[in-house]
């Protein structure tokens, strides 16, 4: 394959970043916006061409005997640590990276377009587009990484773009602290990722994904049974690498940054904190999947973390007021779904049928559909916020007739996430649940319950925002639908959410490249539809029209409500650990120790020298005759010594 297109896909966004970042100050808003949108439009077109060539050209490089291949378009040396351990920068095309190219460029393009309307009056418009380009570049670099270290490089870069974009409104202290929190929490997770890479690369002597995943048993055979604290080195490595994914994908207990990240502009939340960056963790596990399969215990870890997080986030989402936070927790929950689905996907024949890869395929499928409908929901939320200038649903209500486009597209998004056919979320969620039931009914039942909760809280939000009762403020300030730049992406994404479920996803993406024919499992599908409908029905009963039941329910169990509303106090726990223990005790005591022990020792030595000289300086008293006496005594003593030596 010609390397021009892949290079351009990466080069255009970074060039845009440099152009807009350095020259942005001198540019008009319009020029900057047009440049940004055109740049990304071109990238999107190129990415589509590359992805479609990969899927449909039938080139033996890409598909050989019906098996999709992994193909490195280019792979150049960037830094050679040792002879064998070499970091390359390259472009890997395989089913999932091609899919991610489409997802990222599509959503990013939608967000670019949408932001033109949404951010129109914000100062720093040019900077905003520069950061968006930087993010797109980093995310593209992440998904096409040919080796785990390249992934880590871009992983850090997306982290920093996310930091810059969350803190876009840098005059607001809340935005500043949210961006700081996001960066530090993910950095902490990246520490795990880094150590994981260190361990893995030490034993395998390679960073390259293809070498690692083509034949993991032989590459990993050299671990030589090294163990640490009861687990094999490889298990540690994989769990630690997953820790990095937990940070980026906001899994418990590293989820705390994502709700706060909603301080950023809403289109940014749609792009980074819903559709692309937060699924990097899922993508990482999927990328390393064959290696994870070698150590099933690490996959079990992934499953458990995912299952707990999914439920936790869904429960918290039921008690939030801020619509962006609800969406944030729903994102966490949905990503956890994908994680569980990956975790249960390892090769384990059940009643003679290999379900391996079903969970993998379903997870990627859900990643795709979720990206579309979650971006839709966030952009819809942005339109709502744009209209009523508040993030809280208490400032909304009864909006269905003021904002019809937003209403209908939002409804489609909610139906999709709730898993109602024929919207896309149904199909992907159904496959995931099927994979979970196939592995162990416990996971299936647990996640079905979470799916029900999902339907409930999404429709709770939907009803509270669009129905319930009209907010009296509308008389002074009549909300209206957003301008076309904002509505168009909503409509496109809603259309995608309607039809994406019918894509025969298994034909394109499976864990080993062989096609998998999707078939709906009737029992699972029917159960999940019923559960979703129950969730929606409860939400309808409680929130469709103004009534006092929700308040009474809340008053019945105030502790639970408060705990859920405060996100089960995770933030307070972290606050306590970081501020009281790390800052208050560790850092302060070290600083104190430095000043009052180490520095004092040095000063003390100087003080001793000074005292010593002060105590003997009395000998120099200025009386010349005293000096003479000392002199003669010295002379006599010296003479005596000399004489004694001589005889």
């Amino acid at each position, binding site marked *: 394959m010609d390397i021009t297109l892949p290079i351009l896909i990466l080069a255009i966004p970074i060039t845009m970043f440099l152009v807009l970042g350095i020259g942005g100050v001198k540019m008009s808003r319009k020029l900057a916006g047009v440049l940004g949108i055109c740049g990304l439009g071109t990238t999107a077109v190129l990415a589509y061409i590359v992805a479609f060539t990969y899927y449909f050209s039938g080139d033996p490089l890409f598909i050989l005997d019906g098996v999709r291949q992994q193909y490195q378009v280019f792979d150049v040396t960037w830094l*050679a640590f040792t002879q064998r351990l070499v970091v390359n920068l390259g472009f890997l095309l395989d089913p999932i990276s091609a899919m991610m190219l489409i997802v990222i460029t599509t959503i990013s393009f939608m967000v670019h377009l949408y932001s033109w309307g949404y951010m129109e009056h914000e100062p720093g418009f040019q900077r905003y587009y520069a950061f968006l380009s930087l993010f797109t570049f980093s995310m593209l670099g992440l998904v096409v990484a040919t080796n785990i270290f390249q992934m880590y490089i871009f992983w850090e870069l997306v982290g920093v773009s996310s930091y810059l974009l969350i803190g876009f409104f840098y005059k607001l202290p809340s935005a500043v602290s949210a961006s700081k929190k996001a*960066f530090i929490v993910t*950095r902490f997770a990246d520490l795990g990722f880094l*150590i994981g890479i260190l361990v893995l690369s030490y034993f395998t002597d390679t960073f390259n994904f293809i070498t690692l995943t083509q034949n993991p048993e032989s590459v990993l055979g050299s671990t030589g049974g090294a163990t640490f604290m009861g687990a094999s080195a490889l298990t540690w490595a994989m769990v630690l690498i997953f820790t990095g994914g937990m940070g980026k994908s906001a899994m418990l207990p590293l989820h705390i940054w994502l709700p706060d990240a909603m301080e950023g502009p809403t289109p940014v939340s749609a792009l980074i904190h819903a559709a692309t960056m937060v699924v990097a963790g899922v993508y990482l596990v999927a990328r390393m999947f064959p290696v994870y399969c070698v150590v099933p215990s690490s996959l079990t870890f992934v499953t458990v973390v995912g299952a707990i997080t999914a439920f936790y986030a869904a429960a918290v989402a039921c008690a939030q007021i801020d619509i962006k936070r609800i969406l944030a927790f729903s994102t966490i929950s949905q990503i956890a779904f994908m994680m569980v689905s990956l975790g249960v996907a390892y090769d384990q024949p059940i009643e003679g049928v290999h379900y391996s890869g079903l969970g993998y395929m379903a997870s990627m499928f859900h990643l795709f559909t979720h990206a579309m409908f979650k971006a839709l929901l966030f952009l819809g939320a942005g339109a709502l916020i744009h209209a009523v200038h508040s993030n809280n649903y208490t400032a909304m209500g009864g909006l269905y007739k003021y904002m019809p486009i937003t209403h209908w597209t939002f409804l489609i998004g909610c139906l999709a996430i709730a898993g109602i056919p024929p919207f896309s979320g149904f199909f992907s969620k159904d496959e995931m649940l099927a994979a979970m039931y196939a592995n162990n009914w416990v996971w299936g039942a647990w996640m079905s319950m979470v799916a029900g909760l999902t339907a409930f809280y999404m429709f709770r939000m939907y009803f509270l925002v669009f129905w319930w009762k009209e907010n009296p403020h509308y008389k002074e300030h009549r909300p209206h639908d957003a301008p076309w730049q904002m509505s168009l992406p909503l409509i496109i994404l809603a259309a995608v959410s309607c039809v994406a479920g019918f894509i025969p996803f298994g034909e394109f993406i499976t864990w080993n490249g062989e096609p998998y024919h999707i078939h709906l499992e009737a029992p699972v599908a029917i159960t999940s539809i019923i559960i979703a409908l129950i969730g929606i029905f409860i939400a309808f009963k409680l929130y469709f029209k103004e009534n006092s039941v929700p308040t009474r329910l809340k008053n019945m169990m105030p502790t639970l409500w408060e705990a859920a509303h405060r996100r089960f106090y995770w933030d307070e726990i972290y606050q306590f650990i970081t501020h009281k223990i790390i800052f208050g005790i560790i850092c*302060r005591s070290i600083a104190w120790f430095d000043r009052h022990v180490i*520095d004092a020792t*040095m000063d003390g030595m100087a003080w001793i020298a000074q005292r010593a000289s002060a105590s003997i300086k009395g000998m120099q008293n200025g009386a010349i005759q005293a000096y003479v006496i000392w002199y003669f005594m010295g002379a006599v003593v010296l003479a005596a010594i000399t004489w004694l030596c001589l005889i």
Partner: protein
Amino acid sequence: MFGNILIWFVIIPIIMMAGLGLCRNSNMKAIRAVMVVCSVALLGLAIWLCCDFLRLRGMGDESEMLFTGSWMWYAPLNIHLAVGVDGISVLMLLLSAVIVFAGTIASWQINPLPKNFFLWFALLSTGVFGFFISIDMFTMFMFYEVALIPMYLLIGVWGTGRKEYSAMKLTLMLMGGSAFLMLGLLGIFWHSAPEGGQLTWNILEISHNASIDPSWQNMLFCFTFVGFGVLGAMFPFHTWSPDGHACAPTAVSMLHAGVLMKLGGYGCFRIAIFLLPQAANELAWIFIILTGISIVYGAFSACVQTDLKYINAYSSVSHCGMVLFAILMLNTTAMTGAIMQMLSHGLMTALFFALIGMIYGRTHTRDIRQMGGLMQIMPYLGVCYMIAGFASLGLPGLSGFVAEMTIFFGAFQDSDLFHRIFVICACSAIVTTAVYILRVVGKLLLGPVHDEHHRQLTDATWWERLSTVTLIVCIAGIGCFPNWINETIQHSFQPIIAAIQGAI
């Protein structure tokens, strides 16, 4: 003698001093002209040397040191002025030239006594350049001292705050270090040849023919490593660094943190490890513990400081600790990482100190609690500060990342648990670094404007822009295209690694 390119690295600063001597103290223009011409000449010379070096290496010149030359200086003790460079020294010379240039530009408006300031500044650079070109231990030590002494006056006269105290403390501690160092060097000298042979100070000769008795090696290793370690801000000998940096004027902080602290790390591997490899193998663990503490300790200390320069000084303790830590890992990758970290830390600390100087020159405070929202007022300086911060916390694409990663991956090659644990502790510094950098960025640059008086302040002037852009370009250059530096350094480490391997 003057045909050797390396000698010019010492001659140009001397010409600089002579030129300054001819200027009148009030004639700022002439002083600036001399300084700019000479520092540009140095920069050009360093770049030319670098190209020439790479060309010779490319042509297959495999000798250990290139451009060597040796002139007898004091025959009874066999002291030569011996010069020669390998890839590492070339890069260090380049770094020094860049920082001298940036420092000169950054002190465009130094006051009072500009002439005297630049005289001492030039003397300081003579010492620095002389140190890096020498391969004779005695001249090396002499240049080292030449670099230290002007520091006292530069801080004592042009500094701020408790400058006399700090200048005295810095000088005394470093002198204490060089006392140890002198002992170590003398010891090496007296054992530098087999029984009856001609004693020598020349590093290459010693490494070729000396095999110092192991018990002596251990003692001398401690002396030399501690001696250089003091300058490299090794725990617990680092306390001169926060006070000294806090009080030093901008250009001096830049040169000191940027280059002078590198003398420590450079000396550690060039003398302590290269010449005493057996002791290095045996005693490395002691210093790994100390430097490991430096890394973590410096980072945690930086988290609670409120003075910008203190934050940076503690972060230097942490980063320079990383340099020594990597050197002690005694393998090519980690040591390469150490040199990269020296380059990277040199550039980014210089940038940090330059920016702090510029901000201090405007707001007249360095206390982060009394500033805030400067990004709105001086966006250019704010953005530069953020770039420096990102380089410091290891953002890919900037130099810090490359250096740290090379160190971690190199250090992880040692397979015993002791090394592993320390490597992981060192890795944890990437989180702590992020904490203190973002804390400063958040408080200082972002958020609402803290002091309304600051709204009248202006953004960077042209010379400030020039100075910072030079440094940023270098930082990004290393960060984006690290491999040629990596290869140059790795190649230069071969003799040292061979010595270490041979000693096991």
